Protein backbone atom coordinates (compact mmCIF):
# COMPACT_ATOMS: atom_id res chain seq x y z
CA UNK A 1 0.00 0.00 0.00
CA UNK A 2 2.70 2.46 0.81
CA UNK A 3 3.58 4.43 -2.20
CA UNK A 4 5.88 7.22 -2.90
CA UNK A 5 4.74 10.46 -4.30
CA UNK A 6 1.35 11.99 -4.70
CA UNK A 7 3.02 14.76 -2.89
CA UNK A 8 4.20 17.94 -4.42
CA UNK A 9 7.03 20.15 -3.48
CA UNK A 10 7.20 23.76 -4.33
CA UNK A 11 10.03 24.74 -6.52
CA UNK A 12 11.41 28.08 -5.70
CA UNK A 13 11.15 30.46 -8.53
CA UNK A 14 14.51 31.36 -9.93
CA UNK A 15 15.82 27.92 -9.17
CA UNK A 16 19.35 27.47 -10.32
CA UNK A 17 18.87 23.93 -11.45
CA UNK A 18 18.00 24.89 -14.98
CA UNK A 19 14.46 23.53 -15.07
CA UNK A 20 12.36 25.80 -17.09
CA UNK A 21 9.02 26.26 -15.43
CA UNK A 22 7.19 29.51 -15.84
CA UNK A 23 6.68 31.36 -12.55
CA UNK A 24 2.97 30.68 -12.66
CA UNK A 25 3.45 26.98 -13.16
CA UNK A 26 5.88 26.65 -10.35
CA UNK A 27 3.74 28.61 -7.92
CA UNK A 28 0.27 27.26 -8.52
CA UNK A 29 -0.83 24.78 -5.94
CA UNK A 30 -2.71 21.66 -6.90
CA UNK A 31 -5.73 20.93 -4.80
CA UNK A 32 -7.69 17.70 -4.85
CA UNK A 33 -11.29 18.47 -3.97
CA UNK A 34 -13.58 15.63 -2.95
CA UNK A 35 -17.35 16.11 -2.73
CA UNK A 36 -20.28 13.99 -3.81
CA UNK A 37 -22.40 17.07 -4.52
CA UNK A 38 -22.04 18.38 -8.05
CA UNK A 39 -23.14 21.85 -7.02
CA UNK A 40 -20.53 21.96 -4.26
CA UNK A 41 -17.81 20.59 -6.52
CA UNK A 42 -18.44 23.27 -9.06
CA UNK A 43 -18.46 25.90 -6.36
CA UNK A 44 -15.29 24.81 -4.59
CA UNK A 45 -13.51 24.35 -7.86
CA UNK A 46 -14.25 27.90 -8.92
CA UNK A 47 -13.43 29.25 -5.49
CA UNK A 48 -10.05 27.53 -5.54
CA UNK A 49 -9.31 28.60 -9.08
CA UNK A 50 -9.89 32.24 -8.18
CA UNK A 51 -7.12 31.73 -5.66
CA UNK A 52 -4.82 30.56 -8.43
CA UNK A 53 -4.99 26.90 -7.56
CA UNK A 54 -5.10 24.09 -10.01
CA UNK A 55 -8.00 21.89 -9.08
CA UNK A 56 -8.91 18.27 -9.54
CA UNK A 57 -12.45 17.62 -8.37
CA UNK A 58 -13.67 14.09 -7.74
CA UNK A 59 -16.96 12.82 -6.47
CA UNK A 60 -15.93 10.20 -3.93
CA UNK A 61 -13.27 9.03 -1.54
CA UNK A 62 -12.63 6.03 -3.75
CA UNK A 63 -11.89 8.24 -6.72
CA UNK A 64 -9.68 10.40 -4.58
CA UNK A 65 -7.65 7.37 -3.55
CA UNK A 66 -7.45 6.21 -7.12
CA UNK A 67 -6.20 9.61 -8.13
CA UNK A 68 -3.61 9.54 -5.40
CA UNK A 69 -2.48 6.18 -6.63
CA UNK A 70 -3.35 4.49 -3.40
CA UNK A 71 -5.26 1.56 -4.68
CA UNK A 72 -3.37 0.67 -7.77
CA UNK A 73 -0.59 -1.81 -7.92
CA UNK A 74 1.70 0.18 -10.10
CA UNK A 75 5.19 1.33 -9.52
CA UNK A 76 5.67 5.06 -9.23
CA UNK A 77 6.26 6.83 -12.49
CA UNK A 78 9.11 9.20 -12.53
CA UNK A 79 7.57 12.45 -13.60
CA UNK A 80 6.45 15.51 -11.78
CA UNK A 81 2.84 15.78 -12.76
CA UNK A 82 -0.26 15.35 -10.68
CA UNK A 83 1.28 15.96 -7.31
CA UNK A 84 -1.19 17.19 -4.79
CA UNK A 85 -0.55 20.05 -2.38
CA UNK A 86 -3.77 19.89 -0.47
CA UNK A 87 -6.79 17.66 -0.21
CA UNK A 88 -10.09 19.23 0.70
CA UNK A 89 -12.92 16.83 1.28
CA UNK A 90 -16.53 16.86 2.32
CA UNK A 91 -17.27 14.93 5.47
CA UNK A 92 -20.66 13.41 4.62
CA UNK A 93 -20.34 11.30 1.54
CA UNK A 94 -21.94 7.99 0.66
CA UNK A 95 -19.59 5.04 0.65
CA UNK A 96 -16.44 6.46 2.15
CA UNK A 97 -16.83 9.47 4.41
CA UNK A 98 -14.31 12.29 4.47
CA UNK A 99 -13.13 11.01 7.79
CA UNK A 100 -12.47 7.55 6.38
CA UNK A 101 -10.64 9.11 3.47
CA UNK A 102 -8.57 11.16 5.89
CA UNK A 103 -7.63 8.04 7.81
CA UNK A 104 -6.58 6.20 4.70
CA UNK A 105 -4.42 9.08 3.61
CA UNK A 106 -2.78 9.43 7.00
CA UNK A 107 -2.15 5.70 7.17
CA UNK A 108 -0.13 5.85 4.02
CA UNK A 109 3.44 6.98 4.50
CA UNK A 110 3.63 8.33 0.98
CA UNK A 111 0.58 10.51 1.34
CA UNK A 112 0.33 11.39 4.99
CA UNK A 113 2.27 14.59 4.54
CA UNK A 114 -0.38 16.06 2.29
CA UNK A 115 -2.48 18.47 4.32
CA UNK A 116 -6.10 17.39 4.45
CA UNK A 117 -8.94 19.76 5.19
CA UNK A 118 -12.46 18.58 5.99
CA UNK A 119 -15.61 20.49 5.04
CA UNK A 120 -18.98 19.98 6.58
CA UNK A 121 -22.33 21.70 6.71
CA UNK A 122 -22.82 20.44 10.26
CA UNK A 123 -21.05 21.91 13.23
CA UNK A 124 -20.64 18.78 15.32
CA UNK A 125 -17.89 19.17 17.87
CA UNK A 126 -17.26 15.45 18.21
CA UNK A 127 -16.89 15.20 14.48
CA UNK A 128 -14.50 18.11 14.33
CA UNK A 129 -12.42 16.68 17.16
CA UNK A 130 -12.29 13.28 15.57
CA UNK A 131 -11.01 14.73 12.32
CA UNK A 132 -8.44 16.92 13.95
CA UNK A 133 -7.21 14.01 16.03
CA UNK A 134 -6.84 11.98 12.91
CA UNK A 135 -4.58 14.65 11.48
CA UNK A 136 -6.79 16.99 9.53
CA UNK A 137 -5.31 20.45 9.17
CA UNK A 138 -8.57 22.22 9.51
CA UNK A 139 -12.30 21.76 9.57
CA UNK A 140 -14.26 24.24 7.53
CA UNK A 141 -17.96 24.89 7.74
CA UNK A 142 -19.85 24.92 4.50
CA UNK A 143 -20.53 26.95 2.52
CA UNK A 144 -16.84 27.61 2.09
CA UNK A 145 -15.86 31.27 1.99
CA UNK A 146 -13.08 33.00 0.10
CA UNK A 147 -11.43 33.73 3.46
CA UNK A 148 -11.31 29.99 4.12
CA UNK A 149 -9.55 29.44 0.83
CA UNK A 150 -7.00 32.12 1.63
CA UNK A 151 -6.22 30.18 4.79
CA UNK A 152 -5.76 27.03 2.79
CA UNK A 153 -3.16 28.74 0.70
CA UNK A 154 -1.24 29.48 3.86
CA UNK A 155 -1.04 25.76 4.64
CA UNK A 156 0.29 25.03 1.23
CA UNK A 157 2.69 27.92 1.08
CA UNK A 158 4.49 26.99 4.23
CA UNK A 159 5.79 23.71 3.03
CA UNK A 160 5.16 20.38 4.55
CA UNK A 161 7.80 19.56 7.03
CA UNK A 162 6.73 21.82 9.78
CA UNK A 163 7.97 21.77 13.31
CA UNK A 164 5.42 21.01 15.92
CA UNK A 165 3.12 23.89 16.30
CA UNK A 166 0.76 25.25 18.86
CA UNK A 167 -2.78 24.18 18.73
CA UNK A 168 -5.93 25.82 19.63
CA UNK A 169 -8.55 24.50 21.96
CA UNK A 170 -10.06 22.26 19.32
CA UNK A 171 -7.16 20.02 19.45
CA UNK A 172 -6.98 16.96 21.53
CA UNK A 173 -3.86 14.96 21.79
CA UNK A 174 -2.78 14.08 18.31
CA UNK A 175 -1.98 10.52 17.63
CA UNK A 176 0.87 10.05 15.28
CA UNK A 177 0.01 6.99 13.31
CA UNK A 178 3.42 5.74 12.69
CA UNK A 179 6.90 6.01 13.95
CA UNK A 180 8.16 6.63 10.46
CA UNK A 181 10.76 9.18 9.77
CA UNK A 182 9.51 12.53 8.69
CA UNK A 183 11.27 12.79 5.42
CA UNK A 184 9.23 12.00 2.37
CA UNK A 185 10.52 10.70 -0.89
CA UNK A 186 9.93 12.95 -3.82
CA UNK A 187 8.88 10.39 -6.38
CA UNK A 188 5.54 11.28 -7.79
CA UNK A 189 2.51 9.07 -7.65
CA UNK A 190 1.20 7.11 -10.55
CA UNK A 191 -0.74 9.11 -13.02
CA UNK A 192 -4.36 8.04 -13.00
CA UNK A 193 -6.83 8.15 -15.81
CA UNK A 194 -7.54 11.65 -16.90
CA UNK A 195 -9.56 13.70 -14.51
CA UNK A 196 -10.55 17.29 -14.62
CA UNK A 197 -7.15 18.43 -13.48
CA UNK A 198 -4.60 20.35 -15.38
CA UNK A 199 -0.94 19.66 -15.30
CA UNK A 200 0.80 20.14 -12.08
CA UNK A 201 3.30 22.20 -10.39
CA UNK A 202 6.21 20.69 -8.61
CA UNK A 203 9.09 22.01 -6.71
CA UNK A 204 11.08 21.71 -3.59
CA UNK A 205 9.51 22.49 -0.30
CA UNK A 206 10.77 25.35 1.70
CA UNK A 207 11.55 23.70 4.96
CA UNK A 208 12.48 26.80 6.82
CA UNK A 209 9.18 28.51 7.19
CA UNK A 210 7.38 27.72 10.41
CA UNK A 211 3.72 26.86 10.35
CA UNK A 212 1.31 29.20 11.99
CA UNK A 213 -1.72 28.38 13.99
CA UNK A 214 -4.84 30.18 14.84
CA UNK A 215 -8.29 29.22 15.83
CA UNK A 216 -10.82 28.26 13.25
CA UNK A 217 -13.68 28.64 15.66
CA UNK A 218 -14.51 31.63 17.78
CA UNK A 219 -13.18 30.19 21.01
CA UNK A 220 -10.25 31.10 23.10
CA UNK A 221 -7.08 29.24 22.25
CA UNK A 222 -5.54 26.84 24.72
CA UNK A 223 -2.10 27.98 23.81
CA UNK A 224 -1.33 31.38 22.52
CA UNK A 225 0.03 31.20 19.09
CA UNK A 226 3.33 32.85 18.57
CA UNK A 227 2.97 33.08 14.85
CA UNK A 228 1.17 36.02 13.36
CA UNK A 229 -1.71 34.76 11.38
CA UNK A 230 -5.31 35.34 10.61
CA UNK A 231 -7.57 34.55 13.55
CA UNK A 232 -9.59 32.01 11.77
CA UNK A 233 -7.44 29.11 10.73
CA UNK A 234 -6.23 26.02 12.39
CA UNK A 235 -3.26 24.03 11.33
CA UNK A 236 -1.82 20.80 12.40
CA UNK A 237 1.40 19.43 11.17
CA UNK A 238 0.79 15.86 11.86
CA UNK A 239 4.18 14.41 12.00
CA UNK A 240 5.12 15.63 15.37
CA UNK A 241 6.04 13.09 18.01
CA UNK A 242 3.27 11.91 20.25
CA UNK A 243 2.26 14.26 22.95
CA UNK A 244 4.39 17.15 21.99
CA UNK A 245 2.82 20.53 21.68
Amino acid at each position, binding site marked *: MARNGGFSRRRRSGSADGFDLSPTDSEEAHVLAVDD*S*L*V*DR*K*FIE*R*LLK*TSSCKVTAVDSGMRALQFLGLDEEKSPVDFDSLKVDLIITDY*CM*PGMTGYELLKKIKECSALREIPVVIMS*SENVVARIDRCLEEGAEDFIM*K*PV*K*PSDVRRLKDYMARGFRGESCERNNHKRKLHDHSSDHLFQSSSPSVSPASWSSTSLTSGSADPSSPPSVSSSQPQSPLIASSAPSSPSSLEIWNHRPDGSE
Partner: protein
Amino acid sequence: MDALQLKRQLITFTELLFREGFLDEQFHQLQQLQDEKNPNFVVEVVSLFFEDSERLLNELAKALDQQNVDYKKVDAHVHQLKGSSSSIGAQRVQRVCIVFRNYCNEKNVEGCLKCLQQLKHEYAIVKTKLEALFSLEQQILAAGG
Protein backbone atom coordinates in the same frame (compact mmCIF):
# COMPACT_ATOMS: atom_id res chain seq x y z
CA MET B 1 -36.20 49.65 -22.10
CA ASP B 2 -32.62 50.65 -22.39
CA ALA B 3 -29.73 49.02 -20.65
CA LEU B 4 -29.65 51.53 -17.82
CA GLN B 5 -33.31 51.09 -16.98
CA LEU B 6 -32.89 47.36 -17.13
CA LYS B 7 -29.93 47.55 -14.80
CA ARG B 8 -31.94 49.53 -12.32
CA GLN B 9 -34.66 46.96 -12.55
CA LEU B 10 -32.16 44.21 -11.94
CA ILE B 11 -30.80 45.93 -8.86
CA THR B 12 -34.25 46.50 -7.42
CA PHE B 13 -35.30 42.97 -8.16
CA THR B 14 -32.16 41.46 -6.66
CA GLU B 15 -32.53 43.59 -3.52
CA LEU B 16 -36.07 42.35 -3.17
CA LEU B 17 -34.99 38.75 -3.41
CA PHE B 18 -32.49 39.28 -0.64
CA ARG B 19 -34.88 41.26 1.51
CA GLU B 20 -37.57 38.64 1.29
CA GLY B 21 -35.14 35.89 2.15
CA PHE B 22 -35.26 34.01 -1.11
CA LEU B 23 -31.55 34.48 -1.46
CA ASP B 24 -28.84 35.04 1.10
CA GLU B 25 -25.24 36.19 1.20
CA GLN B 26 -24.03 32.97 -0.37
CA PHE B 27 -25.62 34.04 -3.63
CA HIS B 28 -23.49 37.18 -3.50
CA GLN B 29 -20.46 34.95 -3.12
CA LEU B 30 -21.44 33.12 -6.28
CA GLN B 31 -21.81 36.37 -8.14
CA GLN B 32 -18.39 37.49 -7.01
CA LEU B 33 -16.85 34.34 -8.41
CA GLN B 34 -18.11 35.25 -11.84
CA ASP B 35 -15.87 37.28 -14.10
CA GLU B 36 -15.16 37.91 -17.78
CA LYS B 37 -13.38 34.59 -18.07
CA ASN B 38 -16.23 32.75 -16.37
CA PRO B 39 -19.22 34.84 -17.39
CA ASN B 40 -21.79 32.10 -16.91
CA PHE B 41 -20.65 30.72 -13.63
CA VAL B 42 -23.75 31.66 -11.65
CA VAL B 43 -26.13 30.34 -14.28
CA GLU B 44 -24.15 27.11 -14.49
CA VAL B 45 -24.11 26.46 -10.77
CA VAL B 46 -27.76 27.38 -10.38
CA SER B 47 -28.67 25.11 -13.28
CA LEU B 48 -26.93 22.26 -11.52
CA PHE B 49 -28.90 23.15 -8.43
CA PHE B 50 -32.15 22.99 -10.39
CA GLU B 51 -31.32 19.55 -11.79
CA ASP B 52 -30.17 18.27 -8.45
CA SER B 53 -33.23 19.60 -6.64
CA GLU B 54 -35.70 18.17 -9.09
CA ARG B 55 -34.08 14.79 -8.82
CA LEU B 56 -34.09 14.94 -5.04
CA LEU B 57 -37.70 16.11 -4.82
CA ASN B 58 -38.71 13.14 -6.97
CA GLU B 59 -36.72 10.77 -4.80
CA LEU B 60 -38.30 12.23 -1.70
CA ALA B 61 -41.80 11.78 -3.07
CA LYS B 62 -41.01 8.15 -3.86
CA ALA B 63 -39.40 7.48 -0.53
CA LEU B 64 -42.29 8.94 1.42
CA ASP B 65 -44.77 7.00 -0.63
CA GLN B 66 -43.50 3.69 0.65
CA GLN B 67 -45.42 1.46 3.01
CA ASN B 68 -42.46 1.44 5.37
CA VAL B 69 -40.72 4.73 5.01
CA ASP B 70 -36.96 4.52 5.15
CA TYR B 71 -36.26 7.65 7.14
CA LYS B 72 -32.53 7.34 6.77
CA LYS B 73 -32.92 7.51 3.04
CA VAL B 74 -35.32 10.43 3.29
CA ASP B 75 -32.93 12.22 5.59
CA ALA B 76 -30.02 11.60 3.25
CA HIS B 77 -31.92 13.20 0.38
CA VAL B 78 -32.96 16.18 2.47
CA HIS B 79 -29.41 16.57 3.67
CA GLN B 80 -28.22 16.76 0.09
CA LEU B 81 -30.85 19.29 -0.81
CA LYS B 82 -30.03 21.33 2.25
CA GLY B 83 -26.40 21.32 1.21
CA SER B 84 -26.90 22.40 -2.34
CA SER B 85 -29.49 25.05 -1.49
CA SER B 86 -27.09 26.41 1.09
CA SER B 87 -24.30 26.48 -1.45
CA ILE B 88 -26.20 28.70 -3.84
CA GLY B 89 -27.89 30.81 -1.20
CA ALA B 90 -31.45 29.54 -1.62
CA GLN B 91 -32.25 30.37 1.96
CA ARG B 92 -35.92 29.51 2.16
CA VAL B 93 -35.37 26.10 0.63
CA GLN B 94 -32.56 25.48 3.05
CA ARG B 95 -34.72 26.42 6.02
CA VAL B 96 -37.47 24.02 5.07
CA CYS B 97 -34.84 21.30 4.81
CA ILE B 98 -33.82 21.91 8.39
CA VAL B 99 -37.39 21.47 9.62
CA PHE B 100 -37.77 18.45 7.35
CA ARG B 101 -34.79 16.73 8.94
CA ASN B 102 -36.30 17.19 12.38
CA TYR B 103 -39.42 15.39 11.25
CA CYS B 104 -37.24 12.62 9.82
CA ASN B 105 -35.59 12.20 13.18
CA GLU B 106 -38.98 11.91 14.79
CA LYS B 107 -40.11 9.52 12.05
CA ASN B 108 -43.10 11.76 11.61
CA VAL B 109 -44.49 10.96 8.20
CA GLU B 110 -47.14 13.66 8.28
CA GLY B 111 -44.58 16.26 9.12
CA CYS B 112 -42.33 14.97 6.37
CA LEU B 113 -45.07 15.10 3.79
CA LYS B 114 -45.96 18.61 4.82
CA CYS B 115 -42.34 19.64 4.46
CA LEU B 116 -42.09 18.02 1.09
CA GLN B 117 -45.01 20.11 -0.10
CA GLN B 118 -43.41 23.20 1.32
CA LEU B 119 -40.13 22.33 -0.33
CA LYS B 120 -41.74 21.92 -3.70
CA HIS B 121 -43.42 25.27 -3.21
CA GLU B 122 -40.30 27.13 -2.11
CA TYR B 123 -38.23 25.51 -4.79
CA ALA B 124 -40.70 26.49 -7.50
CA ILE B 125 -40.69 30.08 -6.31
CA VAL B 126 -36.93 30.45 -6.09
CA LYS B 127 -36.56 28.83 -9.47
CA THR B 128 -38.96 31.32 -11.01
CA LYS B 129 -37.20 34.22 -9.32
CA LEU B 130 -33.77 33.12 -10.41
CA GLU B 131 -34.90 32.53 -13.95
CA ALA B 132 -36.35 36.03 -13.99
CA LEU B 133 -33.05 37.37 -12.68
CA PHE B 134 -31.07 35.61 -15.37
CA SER B 135 -33.52 36.76 -18.00
CA LEU B 136 -33.03 40.37 -16.91
CA GLU B 137 -29.29 39.92 -17.15
CA GLN B 138 -29.65 38.57 -20.66
CA GLN B 139 -31.81 41.52 -21.63
CA ILE B 140 -29.21 43.89 -20.29
CA LEU B 141 -26.54 42.21 -22.38
CA ALA B 142 -28.75 42.32 -25.43
CA ALA B 143 -29.41 46.01 -24.86
CA GLY B 144 -25.68 46.56 -24.93
CA GLY B 145 -25.26 46.93 -21.20
